[in-house]
């Protein structure tokens, strides 16, 4: 009996390999890279915003709330596709910050005016160097940060209802729970 089972060993190995290759071949996004910045704090920066070149924003402006950071540009067709959904999310009360990545500033302002502005503010990253610090390699990309400004998730590509429901929303509400707990503890500490 044992011998007979041994005979099936090569077949089992072969089927295992088939499964592995199949999974690797038909991954959903074969070009997608895991972010090197997961669970890392947001890099520091000091930039102006798209709408107000005189305003200076830094990393600290993004802290305190669980939020999305959306990398966008007016030259990016996929950004136009996801834009209406971002407007929806913003209307639902999800805090979204924009990183305007390697874009022409007048074009970017026109975009925000005509297509609505879902962003609390959009960081002007004309040179793309903030993008490099974030590990951006294309637009659109969307980061999920927690209330302390730690990057918890990165989605490459369009954010739509599906992505939000399956990938982003569960993590978003989980992080919000943690943030609320931390806030409550802080309050207790202050009262005492």
């Amino acid at each position: 009996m044992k011998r007979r089972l041994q005979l099936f060993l090569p077949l089992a190995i072969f089927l295992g390999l088939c499964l592995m290759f199949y999974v690797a071949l038909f991954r959903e996004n074969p070009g997608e890279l895991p972010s090197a910045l997961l669970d890392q704090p947001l890099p520091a920066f000091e930039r102006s915003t798209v709408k107000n070149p005189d305003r200076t924003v830094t990393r600290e402006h993004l802290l305190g709330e669980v939020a999305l950071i959306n990398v966008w540009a007016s030259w990016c067709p996929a950004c136009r596709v996801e834009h209406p959904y971002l407007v929806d999310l913003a209307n639902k009360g999800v805090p979204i910050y924009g990183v305007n990545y390697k874009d022409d500033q007048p074009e970017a302002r026109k975009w925000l005016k005509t297509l609505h502005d879902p962003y609390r503010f959009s960081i002007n990253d004309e040179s793309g160097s903030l993008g490099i610090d974030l590990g951006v390699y294309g637009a659109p990309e969307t980061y999920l940060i927690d209330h302390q400004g730690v990057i918890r998730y990165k989605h490459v590509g369009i954010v739509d209802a599906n992505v939000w429901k399956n990938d982003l929303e569960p993590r978003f509400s989980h992080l919000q729970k943690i943030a609320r707990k931390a806030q409550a503890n802080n309050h207790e500490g202050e009262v005492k």
Partner: protein
Amino acid sequence: MIKRLTSRLIILLSMVLFTGTTYGVIDSYQFSTPEQEQRFFELTNELRCPKCQNQTIGDSNAPIAQDLRREVHRLLNEGADNQTVVDFMLARYGDFVLYKPRVSGLNLVLWLGPLLLLLVGLVVLVVVVRRHKAAVTESVQAAPDGHNAEEALLDQKLNRFLTDHLSTHSSEDHKTDGKE
């Protein structure tokens, strides 16, 4: 005729073989020393473009590759050594940016895996050869004088037949003797 052909062949071969490294993209970066320039080309040909995944950042014209070349140039100008530049890229884009993977962490499986498989193969080979050898000596020991079992049986039968036959003959002889 043949001479001309060979000289043409030599020219063709030298054109193909002695081209040296060519760089896909030409930027107008200023370098303080030729050594720094050399390092720039080394690094940009070792780092992989995150967007265009089968090209180095030195090879690609993608905007992200241009930006990364600019960063490499900036870091070199600030006096960074090669490792600093590589670490800079690693921190942002992960192991993926290296065309020459590091020997650490999960990568160890890739580095040592083939060696391990080779060792397993050798062990299996040794075991199989040993078993085979043992089986052969066993069958040889079963028939010590080089005969196999079948031959031994035949010998036995022949011996019995001969002794039986001889003894009957002798008794018959004896009988006839008695009659006479």
